[in-house]
């Protein structure tokens, strides 16, 4: 069969679609990714997955749309609002917030996604959670659409909210409503988030390929700790949450590997000898020989850390990061430091490296994830859905 794969712009949405795409290809199906990036690197990074990609919009479109969606609100105020909504525990409110933010992005690519689908004639559309253009194209062709989650929390209502927010787009294309056949591939581990929804699927990390250096293949003598704020936060909210690398990391008997290029790392000031900045390196490869991770709580970082079974210290800054941090702490596989209140301190780092209960819970979740059916095992269900 022919499978069109769509996602919202941004690596956190795009890259998680790769393993299921590989699985489909390896089972002999044809796969085409129709996506757009939020900056000039995103589509090339996706294309470096080895899959075939068509770009649906130039990335500049989304910079404009994000500015517009923020509606004059500055970054600090935006973070504050998301933090409040996240902490209120009102998941539905957060969800509708997200649907409103992402609907214009789906609208911006919809005409092109529909045109590509009309020409390429997929039998199935697989889409990321916030993308509404793929399902629209599927509905137009009368083929099923399958949402693939990228994180812990899925929702029974979000899909309908996105369709509703795209009512004008549906009308423009003469489509009455969403595809009648719709399924969810849910990557939540059985003990976290919303595991009961949809079809359970093992989270197989894809954080980009790349050539691995020698030092990454060997477990070091002293514990290695990975430090990352992902690809969005450093440019969006700055490196403040990493200031402790310069201030206290030198006091610890551990090696800190931080995913910043040299120019970014210089912004932190003089770094101790046991801090090593590295340019973009796949997170799963970094974690394979590491003892722990400190990250911003992005879904990709959270899920990859859970899949690799390392204890996590989460310093959430925006988006779904607060709820990811909450879920990780609740499960006992890590804990959160609220960087609005305090910097990460030596005590936090010691706890991360020595608290055996964190490592035990992380190992349990890793085992849970590994026991879920892999993307390769879900392909036959997708074929059945297409019929």
């Amino acid at each position, binding site marked *: 069969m022919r499978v069109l794969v769509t996602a919202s712009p941004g690596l956190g949405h795009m890259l998680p679609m790769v393993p299921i795409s590989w*699985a489909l290809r*390896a089972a002999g199906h044809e796969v085409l990714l129709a996506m757009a990036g939020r900056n000039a690197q995103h589509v090339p990074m996706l294309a470096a997955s080895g899959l075939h990609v068509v770009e649906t919009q130039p990335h500049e479109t989304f910079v404009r749309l994000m500015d517009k969606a923020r509606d004059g609100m500055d970054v600090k105020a935006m973070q504050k609002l998301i933090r409040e909504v996240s902490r209120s525990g009102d998941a539905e409110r957060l969800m509708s917030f997200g649907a409103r933010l992402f609907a214009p992005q789906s609208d911006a690519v919809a005409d092109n996604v529909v045109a590509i689908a009309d020409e390429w004639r997929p039998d199935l559309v697989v889409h990321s959670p916030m993308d509404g253009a793929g399902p629209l194209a599927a509905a137009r062709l009368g083929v099923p659409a399958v949402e693939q989650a990228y994180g812990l929390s899925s929702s029974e209502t979000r899909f309908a909210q996105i369709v509703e927010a795209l009512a004008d787009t549906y009308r423009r294309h003469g489509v009455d409503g969403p595809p009648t056949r719709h399924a969810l591939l849910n990557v939540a581990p059985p003990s976290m988030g919303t595991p009961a929804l949809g079809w359970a699927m093992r989270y197989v990390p894809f954080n980009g390929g790349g050539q691995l250096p020698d030092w990454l293949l060997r477990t070091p003598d002293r514990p290695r700790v990975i430090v990352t704020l992902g690809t969005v936060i450093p440019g969006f909210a700055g490196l403040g949450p990493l200031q402790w690398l310069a201030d206290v990391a030198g006091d610890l008997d551990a090696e800190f590997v931080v995913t910043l290029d040299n120019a970014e790392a210089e912004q932190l000031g003089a770094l101790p000898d046991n801090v090593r900045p590295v340019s973009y390196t796949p997170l799963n490869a970094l974690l394979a020989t590491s003892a722990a991770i400190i990250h911003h709580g992005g879904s990709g970082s959270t899920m990859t850390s859970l899949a690799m079974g390392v204890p996590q210290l989460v310093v959430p800054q925006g988006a779904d990061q607060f709820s990811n941090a909450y879920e990780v702490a609740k499960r006992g596989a890590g804990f959160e430091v609220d960087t609005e209140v305090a910097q990460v301190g030596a005590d936090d780092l010691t706890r991360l490296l020595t608290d055996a209960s964190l490592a035990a819970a992380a190992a349990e979740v890793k085992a849970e994830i590994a026991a879920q059916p892999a993307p390769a095992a879900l392909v036959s269900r997708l074929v059945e859905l297409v019929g």
Partner: protein
Amino acid sequence: MRVLVTALSGHGHLFPLVTTAWALRSAGHEVLFATAGDMTAVKATGLHSYDVAPGLDMGKLVGQNAGQAFRSSTSGRRFDAEIDMRDHPAFRLFNGLAEGMVDGLVGLARDWRPDVVVYEAMNLIGLLAARAAGAGSVSHAIGVAHNKDLMARFGAMQIDIFQRYGVDELPEPDVFLDVAPPSMKPEPDGWPMRYVPYNGGGQLPGWLTGRPERPRVTVTLGTVAPMLTGVGPVERIAAAAAKIDAEFVVALGSNVDTSSLRDLPDNVRLVGYVPLGPLLASSIAVVHHGGAGTTLTALDAGVPQVVVPQGADGPINAAAVAAAGCGLNVTDEELDAQLVERLLTDDALRSSAERVRAEMHAMPSPAEVADRLSKNFGGQNS
């Protein structure tokens, strides 16, 4: 399960293992792709890769041997003849690469501890890596010509390398993955596996995902032949094209001298490197040089082929295609308008091509083979 995949870095050797690696990865296994020389192709596969011989000067080895090797094997006789090929330049090239890679590959296997090593059939040092790690060994064919016996003979000529590692007799791989379609090889050499083409990913231009206005014919000489033996077959297509109602898309890669291809007819279009799979999906026929990957990709697409062998295993592939009835095996001189016309109109070629495609699509997919490998080798080291 941890899987070390290894191949030479040339497209023809590396590409066929990519879909198998994806199958393993998307089944949740860890995969590391070890190669050497030019790392460009492997870096575009989305896989984690490792350079086992940093600084390996492929150019030097290729410069000394490749042109001569490629041409001198054009007859196809020497490739599978039961003669000592140790003086053959093709052997010296492959042996040079193996010598350059073996220490790094074996060292990597000792460090990384794979459960199984999947090696491209001609990259026999994969057997030593498997042995060093106590891992299973899987030989992965990359074409219809790469049969188990031929690879064993090829390996026997490299016994010096094995002896340095204390192995006096070439071991047999635990598994041989055979990608030959059943009608081209009724008795597979090991586990049959569907060849699912990978010819490079990346951004596709819009004209490639849409439908062409005129019937499209793909013309390609692969990535090696045009540099070694020139673009003669393309010149002949260009001369014939004006008489034929079709669009000829010529995919020649980037490092090719195309100075003899100026003033082309309107219906001949030179494109740079384009992934062959999507290109053939929009084409009704193909003219090519007989490379193993090109031949199998064309068989998978189910389009009739004209094969104009230029060297290496091209003559064997061309003969296999002709014997299966889904293409024509011709010399440069035989390539003319009449022949292309036949390619486009001969129903017997088309139906045979469709039959072989159907056969291939019924073979166990890489995903199914990955599952079988996991049952056989999972837990060896992890």
